């Protein structure tokens, strides 16, 4: 990428960040200003709700649509933190949202913790503690001969240290390190640490030797300075005598320097009479001698300073070595290497030639000894518990011993066959935990019973209680779902079904109920869809024929219930009209029969039954029907006079005709009013 383009990108990035911070600053200013506006005159803070209630009335005098009335809970304004809190705490998180995922994750963790508690997992519920323990249970034991030999070596090292044979003890550490399965090379590392401390001692010895050399140099410088001072003094006396002889009148008296030739250049130097000293009249050779004397003096001072520095350096090396070794002992203690802690503490005492440990090391040694003892006891208890088939307690004891000191010889030497019983027990617990988490209670009961037989101290009461509680919860949800479904509250029914399924997915009643519910709902949905289609087609006859299927399907839907009632009313009227028409036809009044069906067909134009009857009657009352149709056609064309005549003709054929009489009345008024205008 070109450099220029990179610069442009950086500029844009900086501009965007600047704009963001400016907008954040403005928003904060606005928020602060709003907060200031909400502050009352007395300076006390009012609750946000009270402020929200007062603001509309005080500001513009208008009442906001969201303003609470009659002390009802106020509507939380959109875009505030209240909305978010309202969403988080009062509404169910949407599926797939971060809140829903978090809720699901919490539910999983809670379920796992619940199962672990029911099975008395204790510390074994912690995966970090469990994983190495499982690994330990599946590994073979360290042979007894190896453990015995290692312990013998340890005792030998301790004995050598007690006998002040530190170096021999140090060499034995390499022998200990050869027991890889027990020692894991820790003794070799301890030996390396001790060697490094000795190397520091050698460095300290070098510094001592250097100091000795420096002291010799100081002595040489002192002797040289004394000789030079004597020589200068003699030269000064000779020069003085020469000057007295050559210039007896000389008033100046050579001043004898107090340092035997070392010039006094200090400003406060004075003569015996208190007057300032006059410059010494010396030759060039004399001055040279004085400079050499000064150099010797300065060399002596420098050597003394070096000696002091070397002393400090040696002391620091010593302290650092002690601190580092103490830190290493601390590390051994924290990693459970309690045998090595005791051994290293003994080395500490010998290497640094101290009678007692520091307090910290003493505490670690005590802790190590105590822990080693408790580990041995725990292993003994484990063996005893296993012998009595008390596997649950045995496993707990072994886990405690392992977590305290995983490399303790007692732990390492435990037989694999004994550890296998704990491993089997833990595998059963894991399976039971998974079954509880998965709410698969079918095989759980038998596994609990089997485990109680193999591990007599295993208590499955809490697991059974949890299982029964979950089953009851599922049944209760299922009952609520059924009630909700019966009352037509589908949303609540679905929620309750979901809750019942979450509580106990394999609930057999859930399977049956949900299948029945969904079948019913499917039929209902199909019925509703069919009903809507028939309403759209105005096929009220089909709705009438299937009213028994539609009525329960649309129960609670006021709109569709109204449509069903309307459809049934229309069909009922049509049926009445049909019956009436049949009676009239049988009495020979075919025109009246046709007219009855015709009027009824106005509401049901597509009803086949009515249309068939109407067609049949139309053939028998052809003249009347023709007159009515002609009248209607003419009326449609706005030929009102012609239409009136045809209605009169229809009335002529069937004087009782409602259609004809209504048409005559309607058109007469229309014609008279129109022509009159």
């Amino acid at each position, binding site marked *: 990428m070109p450099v220029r383009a990179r610069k442009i990108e950086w500029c844009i990035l900086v501009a965007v960040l600047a704009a963001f911070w400016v907008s954040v600053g403005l928003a904060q200013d606005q928020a602060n200003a709003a907060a200031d506006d909400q502050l009352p005159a007395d300076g006390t803070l009012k609750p946000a709700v009270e402020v929200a209630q007062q603001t509309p009335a005080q500001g513009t005098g208008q009442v906001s649509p969201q303003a609470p009335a009659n002390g009802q809970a106020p509507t939380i304004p959109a875009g505030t933190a209240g909305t978010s809190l309202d969403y988080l705490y009062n509404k169910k998180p949407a599926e797939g949202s971060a809140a829903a995922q978090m809720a699901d994750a919490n539910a999983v963790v809670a379920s796992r913790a619940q199962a672990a508690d029911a099975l008395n997992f204790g510390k074994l519920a912690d995966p970090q503690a469990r994983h190495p323990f499982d690994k330990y249970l599946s590994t073979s034991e360290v042979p007894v001969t190896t453990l015995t030999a290692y312990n013998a070596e340890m005792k030998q090292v301790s004995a050598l240290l007690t006998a002040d044979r530190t170096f021999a003890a140090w060499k034995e550490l390499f022998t200990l390190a050869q027991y890889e399965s027990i020692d894991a090379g820790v003794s070799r590392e301890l030996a390396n640490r001790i060697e490094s401390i000795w190397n520091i001692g050698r460095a300290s010895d070098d510094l001592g030797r250097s100091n000795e050399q420096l002291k010799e140099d100081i002595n040489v410088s002192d002797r040289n300075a004394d000789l030079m001072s004597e020589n200068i003094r003699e030269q000064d006396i000779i020069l003085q005598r020469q000057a007295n002889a050559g210039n007896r009148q000389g008033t100046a008296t050579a001043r004898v320097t107090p340092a035997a030739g070392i010039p006094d250049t200090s400003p406060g130097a004075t003569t015996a009479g208190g007057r300032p000293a006059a410059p010494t009249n010396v030759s060039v050779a004399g001055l040279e001698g004085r400079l050499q004397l000064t150099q010797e003096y300065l060399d002596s001072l420098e050597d003394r300073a070096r000696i002091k520095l070397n002393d400090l350096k040696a002391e620091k090396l010593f302290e650092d070595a002690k601190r580092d070794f103490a830190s290493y002992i601390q590390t051994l203690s924290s990693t459970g290497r309690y045998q090595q802690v005791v051994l290293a503490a003994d080395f500490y005492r010998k290497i640094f030639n101290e009678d007692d440990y520091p307090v910290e090391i003493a505490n670690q040694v005590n802790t190590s000894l105590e822990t080693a003892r408790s580990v041995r006891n725990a292993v003994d208890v484990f063996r005893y518990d296993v012998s009595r088939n008390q596997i649950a307690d045995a496993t707990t004891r072994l886990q405690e011993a392992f977590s305290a000191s995983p490399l303790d010889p007692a732990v390492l030497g435990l037989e694999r066959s004994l550890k296998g019983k704990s491993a089997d027990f833990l595998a059963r617990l894991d399976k039971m935990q998974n079954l509880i988490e998965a709410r698969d209670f079918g095989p759980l009961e038998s596994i609990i019973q089997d485990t109680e037989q193999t591990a007599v101290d295993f208590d499955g009461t809490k697991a059974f209680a949890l299982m029964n509680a979950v089953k009851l919860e599922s049944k209760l949800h299922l009952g609520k779902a059924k009630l909700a479904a019966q009352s037509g509250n589908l949303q609540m029914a679905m929620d309750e079904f979901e809750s019942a399924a979450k509580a106990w997915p394999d609930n057999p009643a859930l399977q049956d109920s949900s299948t029945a519910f969904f079948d019913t709902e499917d039929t209902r949905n199909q019925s509703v869809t069919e009903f809507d289609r028939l309403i759209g087609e105005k096929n009220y006859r089909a709705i009438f024929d299937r009213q028994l299927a539609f009525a329960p399907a649309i129960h609670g839907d006021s709109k569709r219930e109204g449509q069903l009632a309307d459809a049934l009313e229309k069909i009922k009227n049509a049926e009445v009209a049909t019956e009436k028409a049949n009676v009239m036809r049988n009495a020979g009044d075919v025109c009246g029969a046709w007219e009855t069906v015709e009027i009824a067909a106005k509401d049901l134009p597509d009803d086949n039954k009515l249309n068939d009857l109407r067609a049949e009657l139309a053939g028998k009352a052809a003249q009347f029907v023709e007159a009515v149709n002609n009248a209607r056609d003419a009326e449609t064309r706005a030929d009102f*006079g012609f239409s009136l005549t045809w209605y009169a003709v229809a009335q002529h054929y069937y004087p009782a005709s409602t259609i004809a009489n209504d048409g005559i009345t309607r058109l007469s008024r229309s014609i008279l009013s129109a022509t009159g205008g």
Partner: protein
Amino acid sequence: MKRTGEVESRFEHVASPFAQAEATVPSGHSVRSRMGWIIAAILVLVIAGVAGAWFTMRYLNDPLRTLDPFPVAKYLDSYKGLAGSRFKGTFSVEADLGWKDGTGRLMLFTAPDDDRPVAVMIPAGVANGTFFEKGQTYLMALEVKEGGLIYASTCKKN
């Protein structure tokens, strides 16, 4: 059959007793009879002449004599063929559909040759003072106007 033949042959031998007698009335009686016949013929001729003259005068005085009778069947088939034309008709009152001042009276009439009624608007000026009753017959001049409504331009009780 045989018996009937026997009766017919028995009457063939019966004769009236006055078949051979002569008349005793004089011949002057036949002259008067002849005169009477002449006078009667004259009277008949006079009466016929008067009647003819009356009918002739009446025919000549009828303003609708040139109009065609209103074709009810044709009208009911399609009024548009008759629109704008004037007809005469002797219609019987069938029903009164209404009256409006300034507009007229809407009536139903039936033609003598078609029992199907037709609606006729009798304008106020034409129907002025006329009292229509069912069964009355009126001679009207008719015109079919827009919308197929029949208007009576004259209406005279028949």
